[in-house]
């Protein structure tokens, strides 16, 4: 059987990949995908802890996260598409109308 800490390490690695991705990638769509990766890493943690603690709270939490992530995608993609439609570059460094 795979020990619980292996899942936690994997979750930590996935979360780090997602976080680093948000910081270094400049395409909003890719950044958004990286955020989703972070959320899924969290789900893995919840599932692993849930199994390890023998409690269902973590699994229930993971379901909530999945639902909320889906809602966030709906809102997020709509906003990103709107920016794209305005004919603007898909690069967050170019979105600097308000820098001082």
């Amino acid at each position, binding site marked *: 059987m795979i020990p619980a800490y292996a899942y*936690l390490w994997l*979750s930590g690695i996935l*979360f780090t990949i*997602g*976080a680093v991705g*948000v910081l270094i990638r400049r395409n*909003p769509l890719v*950044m*958004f995908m990286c*955020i989703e990766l*972070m*959320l899924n*890493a*969290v789900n893995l*943690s*919840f599932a692993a*802890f849930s199994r*390890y*603690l023998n*409690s*269902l*709270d*973590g699994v*229930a*939490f993971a379901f*909530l*996260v999945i639902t*909320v992530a889906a*809602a*966030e995608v709906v*809102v*997020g993609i*709509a*906003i*990103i598409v*709107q*920016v794209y439609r*305005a004919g*603007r570059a898909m690069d*967050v460094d170019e*979105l600097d*109308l*308000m*820098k*001082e």
Partner: protein
Amino acid sequence: MIDLSAVHIDYQTVLPELVVTGTIVVVLLLDLVVPPDRRRWLAVVSVVGLAIALIASIPLWGQHRSAFADTMAGDSFAAFFNVLLLAVTILTVLISPRYLRCVHLDFGEYYALVLSAAAGMMLLAAATSLMTIFLGIELLSLALYVLCSFSRLQEHSQESGLKYLLLGGFATGFLLYGMALIYGATGSTTLLGIRAFVTSSPGTNVLLLLGIGFLSVGLAFKASAAPFHMWTPDVYEGAPTIVTTFMSVATKAAAFAAVGRIFVATLPSLEAQWYVPLALIAVLSMSIGNVVAITQSNLKRLLAYSGIAHAGFIFLGILPGTTDGLAASLFYIAAYAAMNFGAFAVVTALDAKGEHADELTYWTGLFYRRPFLATTMTIFMLSLAGIPPTVGFFAKLFVFQALVTAHLWIPLIVGILTTVISLYYYLRVIVVMVTVPEGAPVEREGVGLPMTVVVGLSALGTTVMGLVPQVFGWALQATRF
């Protein structure tokens, strides 16, 4: 295993949230049948719903209810925040129709979204479980992402929404990871369970501390406290001004409700561990907010940085880890709500009429064009600066007093010094408004009855609230968990 028979459905605890949610549905359905030129009726329906929810919140005062398997609380703390958040939302909705018509954004979805955000904030204020805290934060955030980019053909608004979405999602990731670690360390998702674990097993638990750290990042982001404040100026500037008015006050209040419940009500025994990071957040917020605000020439950005600084001041009351300190924070939040809402409402009133009304140059000689708005703005600026006898002075006094009682000198000194610095930019706004403008005076236009009433009420609250000792008594009672 979860025992479903133990889950007691207590509708009274969630009645205010239920009323607001019901109003969302009603507004969305009405939007289908109401002709476009009668959309102001949606505002009326929203206000009625919010007012009913406000009345439904009052019976929660003085109670100690815990509902839905300890995930929601019906107590004075929730009632305090419900009343505050609902009052702010009602005032926002009252001044919305005229502003939305002026900027051609008169859509029914706006009211549904504002109500959703309000429902999320109320849920957050009543949440006593990591799950409900998460759901509250997401409900308010998702609605606000859309509201920020509501002026969807305007590039500033799109950019504002996109930035808030990406950085907000990033912060949510940290918040959730923190929650997962706390769950793993304590085996519980309810604050009661976490508190029981922390008190029964003292000693350093690295997993738990790491979790609390990540959770604080997410909450500090929502409260727009430094060093997680980068999004604030851009989002506040780009969003429609009415949305900025709403979110700058309500989101911060709701975020601090969660901070209070987590740190003061649940983790007071770990105060030695969380004191330094939270003190750093407070000190950084006050310093960065107040210093950078000096260089701003755009009023929305100036108020954004001022808001970051005030988040730092509110954090000061959390630092002692006592309920008396938290009461000072609560009073500060109420004071901040009155004065900051008022200030942004004045910006909204001008923004509805003029191009670039948020640039400080537009405000030159405002006293001669709009004496009422300029006078009330002066009151708000004096209060934000903390000058007696306005409520801003008493708010600062109470948090400083909490620090003195707890012998926390370094945050206190930074707080006083940055208050002095902040005088410069708040007074500069007043100086700009009294400067005699060159050229012919622009013709005077009314701002409408709702705006006059709302700005007047905010100004009244700002001047009177500090002189009424009961308000601080309410804050004290609200923190008796």
